[in-house]
Each structure stands twice: as C-alpha cells, then as structure tokens.
C-alpha cells in the first residue's frame, strides 16, 4: 500500500516534471539527429571502409561531444532535406547549407560555421601588390561570369583592372596558363582543385588573404538549420560552436580537411 502510493507520487512528479520547459529541454535533446547529404567532399563522404567522415561530420560530432549529447547522422538527399526537417525525421541539418533569406523563412539558422574563401592568384614570376590599387592599372583579370567573384571584382576593381569574363572556371585556368591573364580572382577550392598553388613545382601563387567578406558579395556563409521552434537547440549549438572556434578544436578539424581557411 505504502509502496504503491510512493510509486504513484513519483510517477506524477515525473510527468509534471516532463511538462516543465527546462526539464523537457534536457530530455528532448539527449539525442539529436543530424541530416546530411552524402557525398560532398571534403565536407561529408564515406571512407572506403564505409565510414561516414568529413569536415562537417567531425565538426558536428565535436559539437555534440561539447554539449555532451548523443548525435546520430541521418542521410538525406538534398532536394528533400528541408521538408524532412519539418517532418521531424531529424532535428537539424548540417550539410553545407548556405544561409539565405528564402531558407531563413522556413528554418532557423545557427551562426555561420564556415564559408569557402576566394583569393587573388597570379603567376609565380609576377610581382603584383593587390592592396596597391593604382599599381593594378591596365592589368587583366579573369573571372567566371556571373559568380560572386565577378560581382566583387566588377564593383571594387572595375575602374582599374580590365575584366575578362569566362563561361567556366576551366577557361580562366587555361588563359592563366597561357599568359593571357595577369590575375584571377577565384573561389579558392575551385582554383586549388584545378591548379597547384604555392607548392614547390607550382606556377601559381596566392597574393592575398583568404577573402570571405563583405557579406554583400560573399553571403552569410553556411549554418546549421533547425526547426523554427527549436530556439534552445540552436542556442546550444551556437554556444558549442563558439567554444570550439575559441579552444582550437575547430582549427584542428579544419586543418585535417583544408589547406585554406574556411573559419567564419
């Protein structure tokens, strides 16, 4: 008799406790399911052994370790990735989703956690100072038409540089190699995939910092997407990401996958 009453009270307490917002939070987020569209190297892909890996996978796992919660990865094709979030198939998307206004109307974004940088590149023998704008007078720069790099160069250097716009990045590279262009301003990962930059035998060198700003041209970067109501979860992720960026964990993971700086 006594025992059953005790159980009853405990049960009531447990139920009421679970209704309290603070308690519910801890309970709901013991396990977080993260959606990812695989493969997208080097952000998320499978090793030959079939193990899920990549920059975002490692970063996501580090966030979960920091928050001391259990994370599972759910694979989801890109075109259904936001509907899947709404349908509660998972709790967050961590799959290189660029923050845009259109998407922000549907989902809640964390602070940006990476963006791919752009950079100025020239031939190894050339001595060009990109910060001295007047010295650039008359030089030709190649960009891929209708990219954000095109807009950036057109607006900021259109008065001194002669801008040549190409249909594809390959064409820019070709004319860099043949010497028709003095400079190019490219998305750095694309440039690095096409030519050797700053290595022993390479013919090209980077002559600027990794450029990721201003936001007007380069966008807000990539963020984790949550359901709009899950403000607490987003807050937790933001805090954890900020900690990882500060304590060096982010840099360590970044170095593993990139030769350039994607930190934002």
């Amino acid at each position: 008799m006594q025992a059953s009453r005790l159980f009853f009270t405990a049960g009531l307490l447990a139920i009421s406790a679970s209704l309290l917002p603070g308690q519910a939070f801890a309970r709901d987020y013991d396990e977080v399911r993260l959606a990812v569209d695989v493969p997208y190297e080097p952000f998320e892909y499978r090793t030959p052994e079939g193990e899920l890996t990549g920059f975002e996978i490692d970063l996501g796992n580090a966030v979960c370790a920091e928050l001391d919660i259990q994370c599972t990865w759910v694979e989801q094709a890109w075109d259904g990735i936001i509907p899947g979030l709404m349908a509660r198939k998972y709790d967050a998307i961590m799959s290189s989703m660029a923050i845009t206004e259109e998407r922000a109307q549907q989902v809640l974004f964390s602070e940006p956690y990476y963006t791919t940088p752009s950079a100025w590149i020239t031939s190894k023998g050339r001595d060009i100072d990109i910060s001295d704008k007047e010295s650039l007078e008359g030089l030709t720069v190649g960009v891929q038409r209708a990219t954000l790099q095109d807009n950036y160069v057109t607006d900021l250097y259109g008065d001194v540089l002669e801008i040549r716009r190409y249909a594809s990045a390959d064409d820019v590279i070709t004319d860099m190699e043949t010497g028709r262009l003095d400079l190019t301003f490219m998305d750095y990962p694309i440039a690095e995939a096409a030519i050797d930059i700053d290595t022993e035998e390479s013919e090209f060198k980077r002559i600027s910092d990794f450029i990721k700003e201003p936001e007007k041209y380069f966008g807000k970067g990539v963020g984790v997407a949550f359901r709009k109501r899950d403000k607490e979860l987003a807050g937790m992720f933001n805090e954890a990401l900020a900690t990882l960026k500060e304590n060096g964990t982010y840099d360590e993971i970044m170095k593993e996958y990139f030769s350039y700086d994607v930190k934002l």
Partner: protein
Amino acid sequence: MEQLSAWFTELLADNSIFTARTLGYYGEGLVTTVQLVFLSLVIGLVIAVPLSIARGSKRKWIKMPIFFYTYVFRGTPLLIQLYIIYYGVVFIEGIQDTWLWVILEEPFYPALIAFTLNTVAYTTEIFHGAIKATSKGEIEAARAYGMSKSLMMRRIILPSAFRRALPAYGNEVIFMLHASAIASVVTIMDLTGAARLVYARFYAPFDAFLFVAALYLCLTFAILYLFRYLERRMLAHLKPQS
C-alpha cells in the same frame, strides 16, 4: 532635344536595371559588335573575290584547296572554329614567344580571324555560284568583241555576278551579325556579352535579353535597308518594265 532627354530620364526613373552604367555596357557592346562584324565582312569580301574566281578555275591544284577550305569552314560550327583559334592555338609550343602572340593575346583578334575565315568561306561559295550562273550569251558577246579573259572577268562577268549575288550576300551579312553573338564566349564584351552581364547582375533575363534583341533588330533593319537600296539601284534592269 531637352524634351527628349527629360522624357528619357522620366522613362528610366522607375527602374533599377537600365541605369547610365548598364546602358554604357550596352553602348560599348554595340560598338564592339559593329566593329567586329564590319571588319570581318570587309576583310572577308576582299579575300573572297579572288578566291571565288580561283574556285572556278579549271586547274585542279587551284580549285581543290579552295573547295577543301570552304568545305571545312562551312561544315563546322563557328563556335568550334572560335574555340580552336582562341583556346586551341595557344597550346602550340612556344607560340607565346613569336610575333603571333601579339595578335592572339587579346580576345578581339582571334575572334576577328575566326569570323573572317568563316565569312570568306560562305562568301566565296556565294560568288562562285553567281559567277557560274553568268549567262552564256554575255560571255559569247564579250568574246565576240575580242576581250581577253581578264578584261571579260572585270567588265562583264564580275559586275553581273555581283548583282546576282547581292540578295544572298545580304543574308550572309545578317547571319554574320547574329553569329557574332558567340564572341562573348571568349570574353569579348559585345552586345550579347553586355546582356549577359546585366542578366547576371540583376537576375532579370527578360529585361536584359529583350533589350539586346531590340538592338540586334535595329542593326538588322539597317542592313536590310542598305541592301534593299543597293538592290533597287543595281538590279533596276531586272524589274518588270511597264
């Protein structure tokens, strides 16, 4: 004039696309397109006339290479020819150190070369056909006058052949204008290049391309009018007499 500019300012006041800056792009594009097409046609015409005469030669070693050339250049897309001349030849070993590089370095000259070679091929065939169609009577009459072959070519065959070729050549000029739209693939800022730039900036394909289509229409109209005038002048003798 003042009224016109006031009207124009008012017309442009409500849009963010057709500003002085973008109209400047279109203006420069118009100049480039006209330059490119006009130069290639003039140079092409100068080369095509002797080639079309030689194309009708009885000697195989003169006739065959020219036929081969027109066959190749009429048988392949202009875009491919432009790619080969702009991107292809730069991979010839050591070309950067020769005088040719001065010409090939800028995108304008490779495009001009490709367009010229292309229009020469078509124009040669048009003129060759017109020369071949010269009526036997005219030639016999010239012979009866004791004209030498070159004199006959100069005084009788070519003038009448040019008249006959005029409508077909007018078409070739218009085709050339439209074909020049591919110049922007080798980074030339022609009319189409300007339209693509405006499209990319404002994500407004309709505005950007309709405007440039209107400009091409104006150019085509000018060409049509010119050829209509020439035909009226030069083919007057073929009109039905009343």
